[in-house]
């Protein structure tokens, strides 16, 4: 476990370093974003000096880590707020969004996967399989656009965007929920095909194992076999997959949040990348790295509980 944590720390460090230097490699900079069209070389230089961007890159990087060790994430160039407070606002939104999306995805994936596993090789599983393939292959920005066209523009059932920051504007729960429906469905269409397929295979595999025949020989009915024996064992690969797919879901989330203008970390990441808001960009990458590691640890913990053989130490 300690070794895992250590290697995670190293990979997060490498990730942050890579992002920091890559962001500085691309042309442009925060001064251009802030000053806009009227930027002159002099004003850019002056602003850069004020922001501390004149120093050598390596020194800047060192300063950033030094501040981090003192609990400071820096100051956003574009939004004029401390990065810590900024992240907190957006992170809450994102966590609510993902918690709902992942819970619903998992439930739906378990249902579909179980059906697919049980009917393996027969037509209902085939039908599910076709839908899995279609939605798995559809990029989230496309799904999002179609959903907006149908349910927001066409039918006027749901808002397309514009929740703003709920923590600042205090919208009611109902409004907030209505704004979440389409983004959550988009993420689900991204994750459910993958997760259900995985779970379906696992259920099918477990159903073929010897202990299932033993349960049959005891006189246990099909429902008992499925729910008391097979499900728990088949959940293990699903949980591992969930833990691993965290970055994948987040990447989809960036697009989804941008399309729906949902004020979450993904949206903030996209904005910061465009505006070269280095402190925010790196802080988000760091946070995502931490969340990914946390997700994997959580998956291992759940699996350790699901599987008493202790293969997940």
């Amino acid at each position, binding site marked *: 476990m300690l070794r895992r944590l250590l290697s995670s720390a190293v990979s997060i460090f490498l990730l942050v370093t890579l992002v920091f230097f890559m962001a500085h490699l691309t042309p442009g900079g925060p001064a251009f974003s802030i000053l806009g069209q009227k930027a002159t070389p002099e004003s850019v230089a002056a602003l850069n000096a004020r922001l501390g961007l004149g120093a050598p890159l390596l020194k800047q990087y060192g300063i950033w880590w030094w501040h981090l060790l003192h609990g400071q994430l820096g100051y956003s160039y574009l939004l004029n707020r401390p990065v810590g407070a900024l992240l907190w606002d957006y992170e809450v939104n994102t966590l609510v969004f993902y918690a709902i999306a992942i819970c619903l995805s998992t439930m739906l994936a378990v249902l579909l996967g179980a059906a697919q596993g049980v009917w393996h090789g027969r037509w209902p599983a085939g039908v599910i399989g076709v839908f899995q393939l279609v939605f798995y292959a559809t990029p989230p920005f496309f799904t999002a656009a179609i959903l907006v066209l149908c349910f927001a523009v066409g039918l006027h059932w749901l808002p397309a965007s514009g929740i703003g920051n709920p923590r600042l504007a205090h919208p009611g729960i109902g409004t907030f929920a209505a704004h979440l429906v389409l983004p959550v469905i988009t993420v689900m269409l991204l994750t459910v095909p993958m997760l259900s397929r995985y779970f379906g295979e696992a259920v099918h595999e477990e159903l073929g194992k010897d202990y299932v025949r033993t349960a049959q*020989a*005891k006189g246990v009915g099909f429902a008992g076999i499925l729910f008391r024996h097979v499900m728990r064992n088949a959940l293990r690969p699903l949980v591992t997959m969930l833990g691993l797919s965290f970055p994948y879901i987040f990447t989809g989330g960036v697009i989804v949040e941008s399309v729906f203008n949902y004020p979450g970390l993904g949206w903030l990441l996209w904005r910061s990348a465009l505006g070269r808001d280095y402190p925010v960009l790196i802080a988000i990458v760091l946070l995502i790295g931490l969340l990914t590691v946390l997700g994997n640890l959580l998956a291992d913990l759940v699996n350790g509980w699901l599987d008493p053989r202790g293969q997940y130490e």
Partner: protein
Amino acid sequence: MKPVLEIRDLTVTLKRGGRDVPVLEHFNLSIVPGEMVALVGESGSGKTVAALSVLRLLPLGAKISGEIFLDGENIAQAGEARLRQLRGSVAGMVFQDPLAALNPSRTVASQIGEAWRVHKGGSVLAAREKAVELLGEVGIPDAAARADDFPHQFSGGMRQRVMIAMALACSPKLLIADEPTTGLDPVIARQILQLLARLRRELNLAVLFVTHDLSVVAEHADAVHVLYAGRSVEWGGAKTFFAQPRHPYSAALRGAVAWLGQARLAEIPGQLPEPEARPPGCRFAPRCDYAQADCAVEYPAPVERGTTAACLYPLRNAERAGSAGVEKVVQKFAPLLEVDGLALRFGKGLPVLENLSLVIGQGECLGIVGESGSGKSSLGKAVLQMLPYAGHVLLGGQDLGGLRGAKLRAARRRMQVVFQDPRESLNPRMKIGEIIAEPLHLAGVAKPEAMRRVKALLADVGLSAALMPVYPGSVSGGQAQRVAIARALAAEPELLVLDEPTSSLDVSTQALLLNLLRGIGAKRGLSCLLISHDFAVVSYLADRIAVLRGGRVIEVNETAALLANPREAYTKALIEAAPRLQS
């Protein structure tokens, strides 16, 4: 007495490649309370299908005809709901490989309790109490404390006891045991058999014991029923059967078992026909020494002569089937392999081997016997320089310990190994010819010469050169193991390490292989390190036997002397657990 199980004219077909293929035909069997019937056959004989039919646990697509009376009720066409009521309550079932047959993520108490609750209802707590009681009954020490353990926390033998406890949860009248001792150490297997015998006596339980190994049931069965290629070939009382089997196949099977202290092992030439390609008439006829022209006309009617045999020409007394094996010659040897003060451990764990010393002579076969966990496989790997160890391993006077790179590879070429499972140890993507030729290419043998030698090697191990372009996946287990031996011999080694070479094979195949190894050893003057848990197998091949326990050699002696006069109690227990024929 009214039979608990009576099967009449049962025929089962399974879906194979889109067609219904009969795997069991016109099968009859009956068992009365307290009786143990051994259903014996090699893989592909239909014995497991017969056992699964009793509770209708056959795979999807199976079709059955005939009658199966379970406790007086014909269940051959019963519905799923009725079958569920009968499964576990009237008949319980124990399977091979209890680790796979138990759910890994539920405690043994909950799994045993489930068997009870499915039929009798009641609370989880009451079911747990029942489970503890059952665990005690099948001889799990400290049952109350172990009830909440998971299957992986038990040893193989204990797991099988858990399975038996589960099968007996609702006091069934019939216990079906499908290869319950296969894969267990002989000493443990014997304990399981004794447990079954005791339960049978105490509970007046009928037992259907399915096995591929006649030796397992020789001691305990009341009746024997032999299957071959989906048909019954012989059935009758066990005593009569073991005294004089009448069907040439069962006689050959009995002769092929490596009984303890046997001088010759009979072989059964040829192979079991596939279900799609079964010959008309007697199915054993193509492999039978006694077959006449009329054997191939129609399936022979059963003839009773002590036992009942479906044979036109049943054996008379003192007739033995199968061709003769190879005699063993005892001689003296100059040392080839010297192992001195070998010690080995994994990480910081307990030592696997401790201060172990051995000598193998030139042309000598040294057998290593011991239970799983005794360190015997690790010894083989250390000798082959596949595991780091402390101490010395000398081959022909050269210390192999310090060798690296090319020198190590050269030394390894002088020692070759044959593993337990040929399907795992042969590369499935290489053709058999390529597999055998590989060591020759490594040694720099030119292609035409290599081809010639591959053919010769195949002939040596009794295989046809036609197998050269075939992949190992499409030959039988016995053939694959012979390929593995040919590959090992191709490098012209001085020492052959055989790690459980026959334990994944059927009895008749094992006999073939053991005779082959004996013949090769004698012909080539090859030294052998034979590792096995089966005393009978080792005693058949080895000149000397070393008994390994807890990583130490506790006793080593010439085979005959060790068998006649074991010094250690542990050796005695191993010898007692080995199959033997009652005289």
